[in-house]
């Protein structure tokens, strides 16, 4: 009996000395660990997924805002993005690439929706040469914007930029957004938009050129 008693004591001592490592809450995790935790179970952990959504929702909103500035139901689209993330996050092999993967989901969803809506925009005027009817180069056209003496605030510049982006023909806007906002490589853009690399180069340059022409005053000042 004494023997048994001593064994029992040693066990209880041992168990008491084992340090308990507390599981960090999702808010304490890095982005990568958060993605890993979402990938861990059969279904993403609810708290971890909510935290992930909390961290990246503004990014998704930003991407969708630039891709579809005139759509009123972007929040529904964003919700659909997160549903796809929830269902497919286990397929993401490298958690470091989560942001790019998320961006791709949002973009694909936008294209799916675009195809459904069969939105017809104005003809692709940017496909015309960089000249106007009178042969003058577009970037030399005098702007009708207020002169440099006017007090121009940053807000005004952004308002103009927003309008200029929204005015871009569909394919040019999406291409420049994929590059500037989502940071995609040209090859990736070519793949996702289904055009050649040369077309991507041309579209990005033309979109920039158009934006510059519309914002020339602000840019130069």
């Amino acid at each position, binding site marked *: 009996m004494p023997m048994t008693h001593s064994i029992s004591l040693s066990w209880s001592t041992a168990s008491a000395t084992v340090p308990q490592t507390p599981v960090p809450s999702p808010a304490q995790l890095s982005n990568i660990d958060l993605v890993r935790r979402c990938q861990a179970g059969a279904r993403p952990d*609810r708290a971890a*997924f*909510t935290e992930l*959504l*909390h961290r990246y*929702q*503004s990014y998704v*909103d*930003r991407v969708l*805002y*630039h891709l579809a500035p005139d759509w009123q139901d972007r*929040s529904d689209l*964003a*919700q659909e993005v*997160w*549903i796809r993330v*929830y*269902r497919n996050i286990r397929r993401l092999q490298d958690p470091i690439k989560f942001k790019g993967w998320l961006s791709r989901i949002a973009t694909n969803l936008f294209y799916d929706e675009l195809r459904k809506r069969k939105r017809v925009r104005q003809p692709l005027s940017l496909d015309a*040469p*960089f*000249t106007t009817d009178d042969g003058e*180069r577009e*970037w030399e056209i005098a702007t009708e914007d207020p002169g440099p003496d006017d007090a121009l605030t940053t807000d005004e*510049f*952004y308002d103009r*930029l*927003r309008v200029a*982006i929204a005015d871009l023909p569909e394919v040019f806007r999406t291409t*420049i957004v994929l*590059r*500037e*906002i989502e940071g995609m*490589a*040209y090859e990736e853009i070519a793949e996702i938009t289904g055009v050649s690399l040369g077309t991507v*180069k*041309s579209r*990005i*340059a033309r979109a*920039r*050129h158009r*934006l*510059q022409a519309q*914002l*020339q005053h*602000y*840019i*130069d000042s």
Partner: protein
Amino acid sequence: MTRKDYDERNRFEPSARVDRDEDLFVLLSCYFDGEVSESERQQVETLLAADDRARELYHRLERTSFGLQQLPVPPSETVPEVTAERVFARLRQDRQQRWAWGGTAIAALFLAAVSGLPTNFSSRTPQIARSPAPTTFEVDSLPSSLPHPDASPAPLQEAKKSLTARALFVE
């Protein structure tokens, strides 16, 4: 390399100044994004070092890009917690719908199996193979190839043969 050199080097059509401008802009744009080959990179860097116009265009590219990057986006209508709630609600709804469909399908199959209604499926229903039931009938006249019942018994070998033949005939 100056702009003139660039134009000389990229002389596609004698009167195509506009095209060259466009090519230059595309090249600068690609360079800005780091999407150029090594030779193109050197070409652009030489051009930027020597040509004011190219430099001006490039600075505009930088400013436009900066503006795009910094462009504030209107705040989302829904806070993340609400979006999360909606996402979970939709996922739950989808799961319930799947279960409902699955249950309906199983119930339909069960009913079909119990009622035995789908007679057109009978050809596919496995059946136990059965031998035909033995049939007895009167034989009025036997073929001449068979021995007459009143005839003297044939040797054993003969009897076996005739039985087989008779059985075959009956079938």
